[in-house]
């Protein structure tokens, strides 16, 4: 598990897959190692590379028979990013997700059921929120959202009105 969780994320290399909650489980069936991962966004192009990096890392660690499995359910949520991961993000100049989604508080059900999600089932957000997360560079809370879609599927683009620097932040999902 340490090897798998320690693989660096290809896009945000200061974090590893354990920090991001992408590696769900590692188990052994005989001599075969099965790593279970979950994709972050449906179209995330990094997932391919992550699978390959996982295979490489485990082979290098001496495991010759490795299989990477993907689970779609339960869906990845940004609330699975660990505290350590959040700290590393700030250090890297990226704002961590602002609030944990409600799903985190619910125990993962034994069977897949239709689960309500606080913002999917919530009201239409017609006005762009005025406040962004604290600026990871200067710490000011006077930040604004520039675009809910940043350089990757998982990030939004903000600007700090104090130090005037733009920065990205992981979106709550």
């Amino acid at each position: 598990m340490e090897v798998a969780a320690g693989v660096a994320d290809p896009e945000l290399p200061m974090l590893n897959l354990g920090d991001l909650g992408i590696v769900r489980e590692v188990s052994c069936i005989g001599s075969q190692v099965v790593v279970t991962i979950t994709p972050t966004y449906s179209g995330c192009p990094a997932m391919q590379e992550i699978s390959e990096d996982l295979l490489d890392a485990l082979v290098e660690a001496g495991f010759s028979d490795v299989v990477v499995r993907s689970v779609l359910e339960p869906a990845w949520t940004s609330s699975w990013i660990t505290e350590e991961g959040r700290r590393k993000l700030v250090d890297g100049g990226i704002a961590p997700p602002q609030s944990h989604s409600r799903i985190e508080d619910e125990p993962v059900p034994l069977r897949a059921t239709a689960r309500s999600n606080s913002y999917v089932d919530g009201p239409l957000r017609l006005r762009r929120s005025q406040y962004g997360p604290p600026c990871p560079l200067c710490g000011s809370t006077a930040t604004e959202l520039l675009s809910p879609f940043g350089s990757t599927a998982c990030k939004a683009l903000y600007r700090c009105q104090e130090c005037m620097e733009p920065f990205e932040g992981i979106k709550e999902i």
Partner: protein
Amino acid sequence: MGFDNVYESIGEDNDDRHWAFGTGFSETLSGVEQSLPIGIDVNDLAAYCLMLGDDALVMSHRLQEWVARAPELEEETALANIALDLLGQARLLLTRAGVVAGSGMTEDTYAFFRDENEFLNVRLAELTDADFGALMARLFVFSSWRLAILKRLRASKDQVVAAVASKGAKEITYHRDYAAQWVVRLADGTDESRSRIVAGLCALSPFISELFTASAVEQRMLYAGVAADLADVRTEVVGVLLEVFSEVELEPQVLGAGYCALSARGGLGGELDSIRSQMMGEHGSGSGREGILMGAIALAEMGEHGSGSGREGIHTKAMVELLGDLQSLARSYPGATW
């Protein structure tokens, strides 16, 4: 690691050098639980997955066409991200269709080698947009509709559809809110921007009722617990549309007979009453608005525009050039490699 030609590096880590298809992508649903739900007709399930997948694939294609044409860099990045989310959903759904049908078809063979009459997307998805305002209007309607469907599909009897819907619903919520904010921004902007939104919404008119008309496959899949109930979806979508329209004081009939068709079809009468009274309550005297709604319903008697349905493989002219763009290289050089 020197290469004379950068394209040589594409096949470096794997043997897959097909250039028309993404190289080196492992099986899209590899490792995902693939068992079939018991007692479900596989051909219907495959067709239903294609419907959902084609909606996403075709809409994604149109959004991708806006890359390098958007008015601002931030909006271009946003459109590309939205297109990417939809493409990811399409990949998962098309792959599921192939697995379920047991036909050996993959996401790529479905995307690149089907003929026009085999694509099952709704016609709203394939339309081109006259300008950014029209695009936002269409994206808003499409996203609101798709979100309502995906929310219900979280409880689908097919666990892959349910899983794709759970992920997809979270992504589509962002798409819908983004488009809704632009509709508000433009409708509340200048006369020019408002007229673009109105024109964009009017252009959707002939293609609205199709969104809420269940095909035979969808009816059977609804009965089997796999598909979403489009009557239910319609109620939710009407609510969302009216919420945004009332925010910017747009008349509901701006969607023309299409709106009328969706509001009057299949006995939405009672719900319309409660929506109307809600709107009148919130916005004071609603006499003008009441008149508009009644007029809209009356227009519904005049029948719907257009004929044929995307769900049956009958598409508009726009689909021809879309597929030409998407498929011509793969079809001209099938099996070509780098």
